[in-house]
């Protein structure tokens, strides 16, 4: 089972990377962009999708500072599944 895990800084925690990107955009002419957050994407194949939650909590994310979202991917095109 192909899975994709999105990890992002928890709301309320200072995200200087997101802020740096947000500040750079107006200089390129992209006005009106806000609330930019930079996180991490991990793709992995797992035999047992039920283990994903523990995998995220124990290693892929640090639950004190990050939140994660698990997407299971269907087929070969990598589109998000249900």
């Amino acid at each position: 089972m192909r899975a994709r895990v999105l990890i992002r800084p928890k709301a309320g925690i200072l995200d200087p990377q997101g802020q740096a990107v947000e500040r750079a955009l107006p200089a390129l002419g992209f006005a009106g962009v806000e609330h930019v957050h930079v996180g991490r994407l991990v793709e992995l194949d797992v035999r047992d999708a039920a283990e994903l939650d523990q995998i995220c909590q124990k290693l892929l994310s640090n639950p004190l500072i990050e939140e994660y979202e698990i997407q299971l991917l269907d087929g070969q095109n990598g589109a998000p599944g249900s």
Partner: protein
Amino acid sequence: MKFGVVQFPGSCDERDALHAASLVGQAEMLWHADSDLKDSDAVIIPGGFSYGDYLRAGAIARFAPMMESVIAMAREGGLVLGICNGFQVLCEAHLLPGALLPNAKLRFTCRQVELEVSNAQTAFTRACASVSGADGSKTQLSIPAKHACGRFYADPTTLDAMTDAGQVVLRYAAAENFNGSVAAIAGVCNERGNVFGMMPHPEHAVDALTGSTDGLRIFESMRLAIEGVRA
């Protein structure tokens, strides 16, 4: 007494830590893939970039076989000091509260920092009490810091509990909090007081030739604590 210094792939300050520890006691290197603590009375997790800091600083090192032994030792009350990357490893291993985030200004910074000892009663800072001003002025240490990921964070509830319990051990002095740590925290210990992590590098401040010998006080404190237990 004997210090063990854990060496991971990507550690870079283990030699300095070994040298600093050897100034106050015996010291021996411990390889991350082994699990024998070689009868160390105290363990130092040194600075560097263990396992390339992949995923998050300290996240992978936490699972090294030697860390299993260190965690067991810490649970039994043994002294464990984490410096810089070692602090990150101890937070990831849940031996210390909180987490270390990228510096607020996203820059790797290397500079001398002035630190206030907020708790000079711990097993890691008791030798700092002797430099307290007679007028009760705060104890300060001058120690180098060099990191890109040293912004200490703990949620407000945890922070309150830590402050009340004396677990906030070191703070950056006024205008010295270059990484944006919450409450200017530079070093914390666990509830029991036997595990301590700090971002600045005491092992780089043990010789007057390089500017300061204040770092020795951390190692000297540990020696006093260990020998006090034995006495």
